[in-house]
């Protein structure tokens, strides 16, 4: 197929942009952005002889844009590197104009910045990140403690309203999901162990097992993990966005310390209420277990409660509840710290929120393990 332009057949082949004939590279057709990939391919297939000089005929270039001219420069440069000197001929006015105005910096043809990551540099970077993360957390805790001391000294500066809002948002509103999860876990545990218990005729001991495992371990952990996922991310995203939109800076200029106004009330709110949430989770977990025991082992709720009364030891309950404030401190402080460390980009919110949730859940489990060891040593 050919293209006829002003009565003259200028292009023999519609899809041909560059060809070679009589020691002349003939550029033709539309040298526009959308065709440049094809032009590159066609240039690579040209059978150029090992000559010292070539002519480049541009007379049949119908239209050209800046990107086209950049490619032209690049091809000429490639030829020069092969020690071929190129002479441009019959340059149309449009191409001439674009050649004049397009200034191409030398760096345009250098290779891109290399990402030279070795195992060592990656390891080093990761280690350094952990180091700076720990430092940032320590300085955050330091600032938090100072704010706390200040509030103790001047109690009237404490934001009671923010505290109540924190309780509402992060504890009361979390109740449905926490209690549902806890109840389901109680049921599952009871179901799974009922079969084993039956084998030994130890049916009634399911009560002991449920009460001890739920109050000591499961309810606190489940509560902490659900709240970490729910509120840890919320703290980070909320404070992070406030940082990006300069709301934190605005607060500072008005003399409101973000630690006193946002961070401390939220942390205290969660520390106060998380044990209560855990207590509710205890009840619902045992309730779930009771239902399953009734269905699977035929232990009626009355029998269940009788046995519960016999064996119940308040130590189990307190062991679980005492973890509450510590878990709360971990969740709220890590969440808020990541929010404060958000940098000025939307990307950073996503990264920090992820880091915050993963970090809190991990730290909660570590903390739980430490508690287990301590209680074991103390014989509680």
């Amino acid at each position, binding site marked *: 197929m050919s293209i006829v332009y002003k009565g003259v057949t200028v292009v023999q082949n519609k899809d041909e942009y560059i060809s070679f004939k009589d020691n002349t590279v003939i550029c033709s057709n539309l040298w*526009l*952005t*959308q065709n*440049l*990939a094809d032009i*590159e391919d066609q240039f690579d297939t040209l059978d150029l002889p090992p000559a010292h000089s070539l002519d480049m005929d541009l007379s049949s270039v119908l239209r050209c*844009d*800046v*990107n086209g001219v*950049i*490619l032209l*420069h*690049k091809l000429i440069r490639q030829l020069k590197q092969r020690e071929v000197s190129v002479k441009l001929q019959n340059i149309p006015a449009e191409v001439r104009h674009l050649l004049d*105005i*397009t*200034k*191409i*910096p030398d*760096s*345009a*043809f250098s*290779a*891109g*910045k290399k990402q030279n990551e070795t195992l060592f540099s990656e390891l080093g970077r990761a280690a350094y990140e952990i180091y700076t993360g720990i430092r940032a957390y320590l300085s955050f805790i330091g600032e938090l403690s100072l704010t706390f001391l200040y509030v103790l000294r001047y109690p009237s500066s404490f934001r009671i309203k923010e505290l109540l809002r924190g309780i509402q948002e992060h504890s009361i509103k979390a109740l449905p999901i926490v209690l549902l999860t806890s109840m389901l876990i109680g049921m599952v545990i009871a179901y799974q162990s009922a079969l084993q218990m039956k084998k030994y005729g130890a049916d009634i001991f399911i009560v002991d097992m449920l009460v001890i495992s739920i109050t000591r371990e499961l309810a606190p952990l489940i509560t902490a993990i659900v709240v970490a996922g729910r509120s840890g991310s919320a703290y980070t995203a909320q404070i992070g966005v406030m940082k990006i939109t300069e709301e934190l800076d605005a607060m500072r200029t008005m003399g409101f310390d973000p630690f006193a106004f946002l961070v401390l009330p939220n942390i205290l709110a969660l520390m106060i209420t998380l044990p209560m949430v855990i207590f509710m989770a205890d009840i619902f977990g045992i309730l779930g277990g009771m239902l399953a025991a009734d269905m699977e082992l035929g232990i009626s709720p009355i029998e269940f409660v009788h046995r519960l009364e016999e064996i119940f030891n308040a130590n189990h309950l307190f062991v679980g509840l005492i973890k509450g404030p510590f878990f709360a401190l971990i969740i709220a402080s890590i969440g808020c710290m990541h929010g404060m460390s958000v*940098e*000025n*980009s*939307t*990307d*950073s919110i996503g990264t920090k929120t992820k880091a915050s949730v993963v970090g809190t859940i991990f730290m909660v489990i570590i903390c739980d393990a430490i508690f287990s060891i301590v209680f074991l040593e103390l014989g509680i």
Partner: protein
Amino acid sequence: MKEIIIRVKNITTSFGENLVHDDISFDIHKGEIFGLLGPSGHGKSTMLREMILLQEPDRGSIEVLGRPILTLSEKEAIELRKQWGVVFQESALFSSLNVEENIALVLKEYTHMSASLIRSITATKLEMVGLSQKDAYKYPSELSGGMKKKAALARALAMDPKLLFLDEPTSSLDPVSAAEFDDLILSLKELLNLSIIIVTHDLESIHKTLDNMVVFTDKKVVAQGSLKEVLSVPHPIIESFFLQKGIKNEQQG
């Protein structure tokens, strides 16, 4: 008569109860820098968003580059989008990509050029808008407001569009950077033969850059044409928009 590049005809737009445009019509010609002016909240940014397919008017028709954009198929819309560049008010650079990657994005998506050619193109565009090669590897959060605008402009120019939309390009810049940006727009228009549509209320750039303009007020176009023609329209908004602010500027200067 020059070729018409955008034709807006009988556009009516409302947001719920709130009427923004009431039967607005105007033409934009090829090769001019055209301003959409008016006080804040009088529908000039909405008009721009309608031209670039981000919003639909209730009634009326808009032709861009000879195509009625309100009835385009998805495929035609993509073809059209490749032929224009847009610079947003807050630059809207992708913050997870560095400047070079921001510029290269459309080239990578829409063409199969070799990586080295894409590099040459991005480097040239950076040079064109007056950014240094060091800035290519910076992320948007590391750039100043003026540099972000320039990077966004380089991104808009990546595909060599003939049509450029700028939404309040100088509003968040200091006077020196704003003047520099105006000069850049003017020189690019000359060099690349661009048609440029600008939403602005910066008097400095209105005087310096615009060939023609429309002024939106109270859902209507109250004036259109060159600066001289617009200024000759007796309307309180024109007076307060151009003259009072102008006088103030002179006093300050």
